[in-house]
C-alpha cells in the first residue's frame, strides 16, 4: 500500500453516486442514524438530474413556454414584437437555478453529517471502495453499500468528434443557437431539447429508427403533441437510420438510409444525439465486490433493492428501467431503510412518466395497447379538453384526459393526459391507482372549477355515463 494513502474512512453505509436516488438514500440513512458516506464524481451533488438533466432542461423549457405564450398573445390583441435573445444571460439564469438547488443539497448533507467524498469510486473488495480524489486515493470501508451510479448518454460510434455534435448535457450549456438542427433519436429528451432550441429560433429535423416519435407512449397522446408542434419541424424522418456524418466547415453533413431518408445528405449547424442512456454498471468495479452486472450494464435486485451480494444494494438508473429520477428516489429510500434493518420493500404499483414538451404528455399505469397485449379487459374514457372551460379560457384546448379502467371492477388501472401542465395533473391518477380507486370514487371526488384537473373527474363521470359537460351519448 502506498505510504501516502490516507487512512480508510469507516462507515456503516456508503452511497456511490449523489444523484436524486443517491442523495435521497444517503439522507434517509443518516436520518435513521447510520454513519453515512456519499461518494460523488462531480463537485456538486444532485447528479445528472439537477446538474445536466431534469432541472436545467425545465428552466429552459419554462423560458421557451413563456416566449411561445407571449407570441400567442398577439391573437388576443397584445403584441410584444420579436423577442431579443441574450444567450449568455439565459445561460446564467439557468445556472442560477441549478446552483440554488445543488447549494441547498450541500447544506442538507452537512446538516445531516453525511460525509461527502468527491471523486470516482470503484469497489476493490466486498467491504471496501476506493475513491480517486483530487488529493489521491481514499479508501472507504463500509458495512453496507448502495450503488446509485446512474447512467450516461449512449453514443453513436460513427459520429465524428466535433463541438457541433452534442449530447443532452452539452446542449443544455446553450453553446449557440443553430439555424438548422438535427435531433437523432425521437425520444423525450431529444424532443424536449428540440423544443427549447426551436423556440430560440432553430429549424428542427428529427430522425428516428423506429416508426414513431416517443415510442412507448400512447399514440393518441403523441398525436396531439405532434399536430401542435408540426410547424417546428422541417422534416420528421421515421424508420430512418443515420448512416454517416462528416464535419465540414459549413456544418455537419449527415447521410440517412431507409424509411423517409431524403435523397441527398443534409447539412446542419448542430446535431443533438439523444439515442437513449446506458447504465454505468460496468464502470464501478462491481465484480471486485462480487456484484453481478448484466450484459447491458444493469445491476439486478430484489424488492428491497438488494443485489446478489446481501449487504450491497443498487437503485435508480443502474438497477432497472424506467430511468426516472422519481423512481430512483423511492428506490433510494427503500434501500436505505432496508440497510438500516427495516422491512422496507419497493411495492409501488405504478411509476408515472412525463414528457415536458409543449403540450406536456403524462401517463401512468396500463395503456390500452399494453392491456390488449396482456389480455387484460379494460375500458377507456376520454375527456377532450375542448369541453373544458379552463382549457378554452387558456386558449390551450388541444389536449385530452384519458382514463383506463378494469372492465369488470371499474377500478382505475391507467391514465394519460396531453395538454399544458399535464405533468402536474398525472399524480392524481397515480394516487387513485395506488389506492385502488374506481370510476365512481374519482367522479365523486369534487374537482375545483374551472381547472384542467377537472378533466380527470369528468373522464371518470364519462365512464360511468353521468357526465353532463359533453353532448349526450348516442343511444345504440
Amino acid at each position, binding site marked *: 500500500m502506498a505510504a501516502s494513502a490516507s487512512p480508510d474512512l469507516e462507515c456503516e453505509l456508503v452511497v456511490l453516486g449523489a444523484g436524486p436516488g443517491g442523495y435521497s438514500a444517503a439522507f434517509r440513512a443518516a436520518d435513521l442514524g447510520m454513519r453515512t458516506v456519499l461518494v460523488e464524481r462531480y463537485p456538486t451533488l444532485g447528479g445528472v438530474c439537477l446538474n445536466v438533466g431534469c432541472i436545467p432542461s425545465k428552466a429552459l423549457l419554462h423560458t421557451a413556454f413563456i416566449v411561445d405564450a407571449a407570441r400567442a398573445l398577439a391573437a388576443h390583441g397584445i403584441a410584444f414584437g420579436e423577442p431579443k435573445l441574450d444567450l449568455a444571460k439565459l445561460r446564467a439564469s439557468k445556472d442560477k437555478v441549478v446552483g440554488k438547488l445543488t447549494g441547498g443539497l450541500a447544506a442538507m448533507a452537512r446538516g445531516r453529517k453525511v460525509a461527502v467524498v468527491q471523486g470516482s469510486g470503484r469497489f476493490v473488495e466486498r467491504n471496501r471502495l476506493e475513491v480517486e480524489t483530487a488529493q489521491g486515493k481514499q479508501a472507504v470501508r463500509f458495512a453496507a453499500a448502495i450503488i446509485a451510479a446512474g447512467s450516461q448518454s449512449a453514443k453513436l460510434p460513427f459520429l465524428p468528434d466535433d463541438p457541433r455534435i452534442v449530447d443532452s448535457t452539452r446542449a443544455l450549456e446553450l453553446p449557440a443557437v443553430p439555424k438548422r438542427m438535427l435531433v437523432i433519436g425521437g425520444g423525450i429528451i431529444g424532443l424536449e431539447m428540440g423544443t427549447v432550441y426551436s423556440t430560440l429560433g432553430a429549424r428542427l429535423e428529427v430522425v428516428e429508427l423506429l416508426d414513431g416519435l416517443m415510442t412507448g407512449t400512447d399514440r393518441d397522446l403523441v398525436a396531439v403533441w405532434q399536430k401542435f408542434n408540426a410547424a417546428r419541424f422541417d422534416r420528421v424522418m421515421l424508420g430512418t437510420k443515420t448512416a454517416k456524418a462528416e464535419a465540414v466547415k459549413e456544418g455537419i453533413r449527415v447521410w440517412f438510409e431507409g424509411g423517409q431518408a431524403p435523397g441527398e445528405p443534409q447539412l446542419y449547424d448542430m446535431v443533438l444525439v439523444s439515442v437513449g442512456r446506458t447504465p454505468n454498471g460496468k464502470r464501478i468495479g462491481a465484480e471486485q465486490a462480487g456484484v453481478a452486472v448484466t450484459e447491458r450494464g444493469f445491476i439486478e435486485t430484489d424488492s428491497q433493492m438488494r443485489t446478489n451480494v446481501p449487504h450491497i444494494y443498487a437503485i435508480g438508473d443502474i438497477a432497472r428501467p424506467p430511468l426516472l429520477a422519481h423512481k430512483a428516489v423511492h428506490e433510494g429510500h427503500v434501500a436505505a431503510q432496508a440497510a438500516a434493518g427495516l422491512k*422496507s420493500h419497493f*411495492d409501488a*404499483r405504478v411509476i408515472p412518466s412525463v414528457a415536458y414538451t409543449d403540450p406536456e404528455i403524462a401517463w401512468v*399505469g*396500463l395503456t390500452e395497447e399494453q392491456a390488449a397485449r*396482456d389480455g387484460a*379487459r379494460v375500458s377507456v374514457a376520454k375527456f377532450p379538453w375542448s369541453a373544458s372551460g379552463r382549457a378554452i379560457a387558456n386558449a390551450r384546448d388541444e389536449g385530452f384526459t384519458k382514463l383506463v379502467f378494469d372492465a369488470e371492477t371499474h*377500478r382505475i388501472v391507467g391514465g394519460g393526459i396531453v395538454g399544458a401542465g399535464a405533468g402536474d395533473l398525472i399524480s392524481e391518477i397515480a394516487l387513485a391507482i395506488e389506492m385502488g380507486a374506481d370510476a365512481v370514487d374519482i367522479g365523486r371526488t369534487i374537482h375545483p372549477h374551472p381547472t384542467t384537473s377537472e378533466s380527470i373527474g369528468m373522464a371518470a363521470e364519462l365512464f360511468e355515463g353521468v357526465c353532463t359537460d359533453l353532448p349526450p351519448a348516442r343511444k345504440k
Partner: protein
Amino acid sequence: MIEVLVKPGDEVAKEQSLITLESDKATMEIPSPEAGVVKELKVKLGDRVSEGSPIAILLTGEASQAEHPEPQAPMPEAAAPPPEPLGRPVPREPREAIVSKPHASPSVRKFARELGVDLARVSGSGPKGRILHQDVEGFVKGMMAGTPPASPPPLGKGGIGGVNFKLAPWPEVDFAKFGPIEVKPLSRIQKLSGPNLHRNWVSIPHVTQFDEADITELEAFRKANTAETERRGFKLTMLAFLVKACVTALRQYPQLNASLDKSGESLVIKKYFHIGVAVDTPEGLVVPVIRDADRKGVFDLAKELADVSRLARERKLRPGDLQGGSFSISSLGGIGGTAFTPIINAPEVAILGVSRAAMRPVWNGADFAPRLMLPLALSYDHRVIDGASAARFTSYLASVLSDIRKSLL
C-alpha cells in the same frame, strides 16, 4: 402450483394436463379445455391460484397456425385472431398485476410488510372491500389467538396457537463432525403435514386410552366372506369392519364425533359420520375421508377403502376427498406393534389407533382360551372428553368388535 407440464409453443390436446395444483395434501392436474398451441403461460411454479385464475393463453384452430409463422415472414399482429384465454376451473379474464393485487393502500401495504402479513389472506372491511389498517391488525390478532398460521415459527422460537413456550433454542449440531451424513429434503406431504401435526400435538391436551377387543369371531366371519369380495375384485379387510364398529360406537358416544367451536365454549356435535382413514403412501401419510360411513355396508366400505388407498398412492386424491372428517382411524395392524399413541387430527376430538391383532391366552372363567386380541388406542381431547367417557367408548367399541351383530342394533 407445483408443476408446469407445458411451455409456450407446445401443442396440447383437449384434456391434456397443463399444470399440477396442490391443495392440502391433494394434487390435481388441470386439463386443457381445448386443443391448440400454448401461446403464453400466465402462471409460474409456486404461484397460488384459485378458481378463475388464468393459466395460459391457448391458440385454438386457425389461430395456432397464424402464430407459427415462417421465421422470415413474421405475421402482423392483426392477422392472429384474438387469443383465447384459457383455464379451469373457471377461466376467462386474465388480469394485469395492478388489477389482481389485494385492494389496499400503500400505507396498509407497508404495515403488512412490517408484520409479514400476506394481504392476499386478509379480507377487507373498508368501502368496496378495501383492506384497512385495522383489518391487518385484526388478522394478526386472530393469528395470535389461535387461528393457526400457515407455517409455524421456527423450532424453539415458541408462539404456536397462542402458546408461548419460551423454549430453549434448538440444539445446533454439525452432524458431519461425527460421521458421514446425507441431507434429504422432506417430502411435500411431510412438509405440509408437519406444521399441522406440531400444532395439534402442542395445542390439544392428549390422553390415550388403551383397550383390547376379542375379534376371534369377527376374524372368522371376515374370512368366511372374503371369497365373495375377491370375486368382486377387492379385499374384505378388518379395517372395513373397524369403520363400521366405530360408527356404531360414535352413535352411542356422540361427543367423540364432534369439534370444539371457535370460541372454545361449545361443542359442535356432528350428525354425520365421515371417517378419516390414515393411508401410508410413498410420499407420506394422507387421511382420505369415507363419507357417510353410517349409511354404507361393510362390502361398500371395503371397496371404497380399497379405492381411496389406491388413489392416495397414485396421488390422485382431490382436495374434497381429504376434507370434512369427523373421526379418524389410524391402523398399523398390517405392519406390527403392540400399541401407539396417535395424534388427534384437529378439529376432530378423537382418533383410534389400531395395532396388530395377536393370539393371546384369555381367561374365560374356567380356562385360558386362545383368543385373537386386537389392541386399540384411543387418543382424545381431554378438554372435550373425560377419562370415564373414553374408557366407556373403547370398551363399548371392543364389545361391538367381539360381536359385530351389535352394529345392527
